[in-house]
Structure formats: structure tokens, C-alpha cells
């Protein structure tokens, strides 16, 4: 299971999205997953091996690294992307359930009537599989719920990142006096500027995705009201 596999899953569910949903998916995969994999992971690659403290005391570096980086940015972003993508699968599951139910009804109906030829039935089943369901009724509620969950997850993870790292800026120097460090030692973080740039970039992309989700929700609500 990897990012391309997730992409394939989501693209399948994409057929029943609105246009804003399709734009959201492109922004997610191009500006967040791609940037994470091709750029951000190499910036954070040496985050622990290049975390240096001004002491020879064994264990001090490990302990200080652990104190200042309880969860790495990369892992937080991976989790965020996975959680944010999953509500779409709710919609895909509902569509699959609807198709299954309609297929059963079709087969039962043709069985009772008995006059539909095999070819006609296959044609009907094919249109059932390929059709695009209008976003109304229970599908509307499922879709709106998935959008709300997406927004909650995005907001939650952005807040978690902000809270754990006290803002989006990465300092060059942190001071640490955890045992076994002998006294207050200076510890230096590797590539802080590059990390700040990427943190700000990912936070911006996250906000754009949130704005797209809110716009989509507003559009759905407006569509339902006019109906």
C-alpha cells in the first residue's frame, strides 16, 4: 500500500464528486503528496542524525531530540493526508451499496417479468455500473458528512502541528537540560530555514484545501436549498 495505490482508490471515488471535489483531489495529490514525497522527506531525512548537542554526554542528544520533536512533521503530514483522504471512501462505499441494491432489484424484477432477454439485462447492468449518481437524498447527506469530516481532520491536524511545535517556525537552536545532560546544553537543529519554508508551504496548501472544502459544502447546501 503506497501513495499511488491511495491515488487509484480516490480517483475511482472521484466520479461522483462535484467539480470542486475534483480540483481538491488534484491539489491534494500534486501540491501535498507529491511535494511531501519528492521534496519534504529529503529535508527531514537527517533530522535525528544531524541533531547535534554541545556535549559529549551519551544519551543527551537522544533525550533532547525526543523532548523537542515528539512526532516528526513528516509523520504528522502523512497521517493528515491519510485521514483527510478517507472520508471520500465513505462516499465510494455508499455508491457501491446503492449499485448493489439496484442490481439486486433489477435482477429480481427481470426474473419476475421474465421477458427481458439476456443481452438487455447485461446492457442494463452495464449502465448501472457506469452511471453517475446525482448528489441528492442520502448521497447528499453522505457527501456533506464526508466534507465535514475532511474539514475537521484538516483543522485538527493543523492545530496539532501548531501546538506541538509552537508555531510554524523551526528555531536553529534549542536549549535542553533533561537528564542525563550535565547542565543546560545548546542543541542545533539541522536545516531549520528549509524546514520552515516547507512547513509554511504545507500549511498554505492545507488552508487552500480547507477553503475548497468549505466552498464545496456551501455549494451543496445552496443546491439543496434551491431544490
Amino acid at each position: 500500500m503506497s501513495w499511488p495505490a491511495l491515488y487509484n482508490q480516490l480517483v475511482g471515488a472521484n466520479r461522483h464528486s462535484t467539480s470542486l471535489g475534483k480540483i481538491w483531489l488534484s491539489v491534494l495529490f500534486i501540491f501535498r503528496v507529491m511535494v511531501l514525497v519528492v521534496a519534504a522527506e529529503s529535508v527531514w531525512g537527517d533530522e535525528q542524525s544531524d541533531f547535534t548537542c554541545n556535549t559529549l554526554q551519551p544519551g543527551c542528544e537522544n533525550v533532547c531530540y525526543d523532548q523537542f520533536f515528539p512526532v516528526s512533521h513528516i509523520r504528522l503530514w502523512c497521517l493528515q493526508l491519510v485521514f483527510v483522504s478517507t472520508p471520500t471512501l465513505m462516499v465510494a462505499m455508499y455508491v457501491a451499496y446503492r449499485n448493489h441494491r439496484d442490481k439486486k432489484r433489477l435482477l429480481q424484477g427481470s426474473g419476475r417479468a421474465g421477458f427481458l432477454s439476456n443481452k438487455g439485462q447485461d446492457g442494463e447492468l452495464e449502465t448501472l455500473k457506469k452511471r453517475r449518481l446525482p448528489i441528492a437524498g442520502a448521497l447528499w447527506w453522505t457527501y456533506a458528512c464526508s466534507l465535514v469530516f475532511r474539514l475537521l481532520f484538516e483543522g485538527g491536524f493543523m492545530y496539532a502541528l501548531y501546538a506541538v511545535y509552537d508555531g510554524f517556525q523551526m528555531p536553529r537552536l534549542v536549549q535542553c537540560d533533561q537528564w542525563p545532560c550535565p547542565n543546560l546544553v545548546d542543541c542545533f537543529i539541522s536545516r531549520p530555514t528549509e524546514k520552515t519554508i516547507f512547513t509554511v508551504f504545507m500549511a498554505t496548501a492545507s488552508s487552500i484545501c480547507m477553503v475548497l472544502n468549505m466552498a464545496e459544502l456551501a455549494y451543496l447546501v445552496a443546491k439543496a436549498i434551491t431544490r
Partner: protein
Amino acid sequence: MYCDSSDPPDPPKKQDPEPKMNWASFYAVISGVNRHSTGIGRIWLSVLFIFRILVLVVAAESVWGDEKSGFTCNTQQPGCNSVCYDHFFPISHIRLWALQLILVSTPALLVAMHVAHRRHVDKRLYKLSGRSNPKDLEQIKTQKMKITGALWWTYVISLVFRIIFEVTFMYVFYMIYPGYKMIRLVKCDSYPCPNTVDCFVSRPTEKTVFTVFMLAVSGVCILLNIAEVVFLVGKACSKHLNNAGDSTMGAWIQQKLCSY
């Protein structure tokens, strides 16, 4: 995903299939737009993928792979290396190029979205006019859209955005790293370095060669984009001139040209 932090000192060097797989899936997404591009657009796409993305992935990434571990300062003061590296390299060339390539390729998706929208509209029209024959609907999917009308504007706007992004990144590059040459030695005195220490950059000549190469190809791509804009504008103008009988604008242009 990097879960083991006791990796060897230069992790980017190892041939991780994940980034290649993602540039490959990126290629699949972008090359889908190719069908609706002009000839120059297809050349641009090939130049982008062969001379920029491929070179980045197979060559440049290994040159910059040990940029931090190979950056050595003439001091044993812990932290001085990190701080001096951060001072002179706020963002690595490789990351700048990766972001540039991603941003420069995305305007093409505007065109893809427009084409998908037009197809959707055409499908609806066909269905309303009663021609919901699956053969006709298939034809809509496979026919090549002509670059006229609103699609022309979308295409030209996407080209303009491409040029803007390319130029912006070249400017950012120049601002962060004035001069395209990579220096061998930098002098640094940020805390905690005890005094002005000499720091040595790893593989400066090789980095200069690749920087010049990537910038040259960037320049070539900008020229291709400008040529494509000129071609599209020229094509639109000549179409208006040919329809001079129908449009007053065309007649006016023709009159002006004839007066010379």
C-alpha cells in the same frame, strides 16, 4: 517513509523507488494533456520530462545528496556546521527545482479541466438532441478539441502562468544564490562558531555544472512557451483576417495592413 533515524549519513543517495514512482504518476497525469496541445507544447513537455525531471532524478539528486554531510567547517565546535550550512543554504537547489517543476507543470491541468468540462457539456447536448448512441458518446471522448474560443483563452492563460512561474523561480534562485557559480569556500561566524571559520562546500564544480545546465534548459522552456504564445496569437489573428468579410475587426486590420 523514513522511520529509521539511524540511516547512513546521506539518505537521499539511496535509490528509493517511491519518488520515481511519483514523478512517473505525475508524468501520467500531465501527459494526458498532451493530446490537446500544439506541436510546440508537445516539444515543451518532452524537454520538461527528459532534460529536467529525468536529469533531476537520475543525476542532480545524487550530486546534492551529501550536501549537508559533506559540508565541513574548520572547527570542532558542535553545532557550528549545522548553523553555517543553514545560513548559506536556506533552501537546497534540488528542492527549489522540484517545486519549480511541479508549479510549472500544473497550468496544463487548467487546460485538461476545461476540455473535460467541454466534453461534459457536449455529452449533455447530444443527449438532449436525442443522439444518446454509445458510439456517439465514445466519439466525444476521443475527438481532439480544436484550440478555439474559450479553450484558446484558457490555453494562452496557462502558457502565461507557466512563463510567470518559470521567471519567478529563476529570479528567486538568483536572489538566494547570487551568481550561478557554487563557491568552494564560505566564511561563517554565526553563533556558536567561536570566530570566523572556513567552511567547505562539497562538489562545488559539479554543482555549478548542473546549475548552469538546469538554468539553460529553463531558459529553453521559457523560449518554447513564448514561441507557443506567439504561434497561437498569430493563428487567431490570421483566422480573423480570413473571416474579414464577417468581422469588422478583421476588415479594419486588413485595411491598415493594405495601407502599408
